[in-house]
């Protein structure tokens, strides 16, 4: 076990308490950056998709994991981001303006609807956000001149500063663009969580009454968290639009919202890393299922391709198992495994028993 001997308050303020952990993240980002040289187009596109989902997952994590507000409507913010970005670019606004504008639009919209919505909590807030989602879906269809209505809209190819970031023509550049956005957002998110703002989010999540007694304006804090959450999700939406290329309102279905909730819940509520693990699982699962299906068919002649809803059922089963056995998600499980190795052979069976408490997000109030 490694003991970190701290000699200044700064070592607690720093993002990583030890240079070795910082080095590990640096290596990870390095590998991610080199990915276009290591894998083929198909897997690179999949990696880009996973990163977009991780970005959207981080957005939802701010609200659900760190502020305790369940949202079933985050597909709406993906849609707002995607449509704002595509519509602006279609009238000639360059990407580097349209993209932040998409995040800002989704964020401001989220903060505005949050002001009345955050007075609710638990299942009621989930239903309210679901209603917002339906409204946004209808708006998208009605605002046909801007959104293309039912027909859909084209997300133009990205060119900035003379470099092409086209989804197909220059996939490597497109991937790097996404990676850069994800790294920046992750950095900002990690900063937020080590600062007074992040602490006020956690305070509101864990005990509203004592948050108030400490001088935290709960309504404003929740609205801010929801605004940041929908803003980041809006950025992910804009990238998703470019990734898909041509889309209509059906891309942002309620299932996207539910999948996003799965990303944060299975990944690990309250951990930034959880959004990434969840995204890997959600985007990787259909691939794994497809491979399994093919190999079952080829090797044993069992054809499960005809079974409808197999993916959805598997997702549901995994989610239920996680909620029952590991409420802290994949990342929480990883922390336990790491601790087990770090203190080997001193781990005890009941060591984390008291830690198996649910976040208030998951409770019905």
């Amino acid at each position, binding site marked *: 076990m490694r003991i970190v001997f701290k000699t200044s*308050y*700064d070592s*607690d*303020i720093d993002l990583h308490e030890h240079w070795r952990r910082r080095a590990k993240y640096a290596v990870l980002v390095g590998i991610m950056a080199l990915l276009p040289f290591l894998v083929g187009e198909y897997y690179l596109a999949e990696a880009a998709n996973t990163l977009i989902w991780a970005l959207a997952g981080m957005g939802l994590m701010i609200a659900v994991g760190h502020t305790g507000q369940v949202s079933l409507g985050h597909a709406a913010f993906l849609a707002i981001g995607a449509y704002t970005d595509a519509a602006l670019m279609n009238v000639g606004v360059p990407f580097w303006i349209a993209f932040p504008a998409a995040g800002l639009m989704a964020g401001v919209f989220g903060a505005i609807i949050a002001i009345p919505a955050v007075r609710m909590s638990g299942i009621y807030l989930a239903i309210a956000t679901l209603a917002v989602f339906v409204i946004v879906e209808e708006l998208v269809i009605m605002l046909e001149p801007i959104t293309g209505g039912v027909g859909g809209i084209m997300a133009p190819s990205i060119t900035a500063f003379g470099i092409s970031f086209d989804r197909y023509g220059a996939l490597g550049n497109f991937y790097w663009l996404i990676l850069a956005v994800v790294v920046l957002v992750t950095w*900002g*998110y990690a*900063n*937020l969580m*080590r*600062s*007074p*703002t*992040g*602490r*006020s989010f*956690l*305070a509101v*999540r*864990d*005990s509203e*009454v*004592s*948050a*108030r*007694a*400490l*001088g*935290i*304006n*709960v309504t404003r804090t929740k609205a*801010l968290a929801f605004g*940041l959450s929908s803003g980041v999700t809006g950025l992910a939406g804009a990238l998703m639009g470019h990734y898909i290329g041509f889309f209509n309102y059906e891309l942002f279905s309620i299932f996207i919202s539910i999948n996003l909730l799965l990303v944060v819940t299975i990944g690990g509520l*309250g951990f930034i890393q959880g959004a990434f693990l969840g995204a890997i699982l959600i985007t990787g699962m259909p691939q794994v299922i497809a491979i399994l299906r093919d190999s079952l068919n080829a090797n044993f002649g069992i054809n499960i391709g005809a079974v409808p809803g197999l993916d959805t059922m598997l997702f549901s089963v995994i989610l239920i198992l996680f909620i029952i056995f590991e409420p802290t998600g994949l990342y929480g499980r990883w922390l336990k495994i790491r601790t087990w190795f770090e203190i080997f052979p001193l781990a005890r069976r009941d060591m984390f028993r*008291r*830690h198996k*408490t649910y*976040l208030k997000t998951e409770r019905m109030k």
Partner: protein
Amino acid sequence: MSLLDVENLAIHFGGVKAVDGVSFSVDPGEVFAIIGPNGAGKSTIFNLISRIYEPTHGTIRFDGQDITGFKAHDIARLGIARTFQNIELFDHSTVLDNLLMGRHTHRATNFVQDILFLPKVRREERAHRERVEEVIEFLELEAYRKKRIEGLPYGVRKVVEIGRALAIGPKLILLDEPASGLSVEETQDVAYWIEDMRRDMGLTVLMVEHDMSLVTQVSDRVLAVANGRPLAMGTAAEVQADPGVQAAYLGTGAAA
């Protein structure tokens, strides 16, 4: 001049008069205790002062300022900190983070600066940490700094909550049953801390407590309430000798 003035305070929940016509004033540097049987309205008085409840009538003045119309989240900024009868800590955070959350009223950065983690944020964080370390040292919480609340024993949580209230840097601290559920030794620690808060930190303490040994030991004045109404006020000995108070606790016909 008194620090806290409560005048004719009342709150009615429908027909239930939880608090009805309570008046008292707390002088600066005083330890003032409110006692009473279960359901007497002691915690309700606290919730009225910290503006969680809206009083039916009456006024609350702090430092000469009428705070009856203030919002709950504006109270801490004035210098009123509180603890809760059933511990209300942030369970999924560490002791250190809980205490740092107590510094919220002193934050000088906005969320944009926080996201970018500008040098100013780091400077502020260091300053908050120094204040919090003083509290940790005062309450002897060094061993628990990096422990998450959910794994801590009850007695420690109780102390962390006092620490979080102290981290605000208040003028007045409201302690809601600081000794409930504590062992004799832990209660004695609380008594010493209350003494030190008054003497070394210049704090004014208003507390609700059932443990009469603690009340007798630390408080200058005691207010006894029953059924939302004031019964007696004076030193601990005077209040305990009051026939009305004895009747409220023991139910004899003495004060009929």
